[in-house]
């Protein structure tokens, strides 16, 4: 099996599931940020709760290797907040913008165009950022179990607990 074909098939299923999950809609994403419609949170949390168990199970048996991205504090926090701000205006993240086109929301094209521009802009800014924000405190490729010195399964149990609390709250509030 060719890796490009594998990627395409995986993406196809991912797009299909996002469509079925109802997360490819501007209204749903903005209303999630306004706490009026938590559909995307339900989707993300359900995926995380299931995925975390399976990934850890595979990692324990060394069938996969986990791949943590560096906890570069400035980059993650500033980048994350910037993303959030842009997201609240754009109404899509990169994956859902592409998926939204598949559901007919052609206005997502402008978001995608902007994202391509933003990526090119970042490439220009990278040397400057390398000497500034990216050079601040970096904890490296860190997993929560290692950071806390506890078993990953304990972390997963806590994740499940927190996730269920959030989902029950969403249903209770009918959002």
């Amino acid at each position, binding site marked *: 099996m060719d*890796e*490009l074909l*594998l*990627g395409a098939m*995986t993406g*196809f299923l*991912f*797009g*299909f*599931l*996002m*469509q*079925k*999950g*109802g997360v490819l809609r*501007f*209204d749903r994403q*903005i209303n999630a*940020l306004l*706490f009026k419609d938590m559909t995307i949170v339900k989707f*993300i949390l*359900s*995926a995380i*709760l*299931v995925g975390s168990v*399976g*990934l850890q199970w*595979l990692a324990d048996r060394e069938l*996969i290797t986990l791949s*943590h991205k560096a906890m570069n504090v400035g*980059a*993650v926090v500033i*980048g*994350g*907040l*910037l*993303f*959030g*701000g*842009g997201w609240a*205006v*754009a109404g899509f*993240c*990169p994956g859902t913008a592409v998926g939204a086109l598949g*559901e*007919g*929301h052609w206005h997502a094209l*402008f978001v995608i*165009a902007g*994202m*391509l*521009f933003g990526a090119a802009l*970042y*490439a220009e*800014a990278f040397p400057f*950022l390398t000497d500034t924000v990216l050079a601040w405190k970096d904890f490296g490729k860190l997993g*929560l*179990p290692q*950071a806390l010195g506890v078993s990953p399964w304990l972390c997963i149990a806590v*994740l499940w607990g927190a996730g269920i609390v959030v989902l029950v709250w969403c249903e209770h509030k009918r959002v």
Partner: protein
Amino acid sequence: MYSKQSNQKWRPYVAGALAGLLAIGSAYATAKVMGKTAYLGTSTTFVRAAGMIEQKVWPERVAANAYFQKEKVKVDWQFMLVCGIFFGALAGSLIGREFEWDGMPSVWAKRFGPNPLFRAVCAFAGGAVAMFGARLADGCPSGHGLSGVMQLSVSGLAATACFFLGGVWVAKKIYRKGGRYG
């Protein structure tokens, strides 16, 4: 049997759980096929696509750019994943008869009016800021929010928290005035 409404209620949970299974299966399959575990993500592809477009008009700049060198401007597994997302979503919406040409989101129009040029400009600007932030954070909600948190990565948890903090704050600010047009 089930009312249409309760069917709809379960969709994000079922689809989300299946997406979790997909992430697991994909990790296993990529480790087997590529010898390297790959995780769901999308924002790096935008860097590569931007590089491909820029290469057409300004190839020397792309070749000399450290970031494009780092991320490599090429069609790879993730690039095909992003392309696949479009077709999967298309298939899903056609099969479920939910495909609908839509040029203006209603939540936006209710707040800011139906001017398509204004929407286009804001969509572009929002997308640019979002992607800049995602690249700085080295991931988007798929990469950090799904894959990162699933792996219990500290960066994934922190990034996702910041995505939502930033998003909630800005959304509250700009939608505070409510439906002036609705």
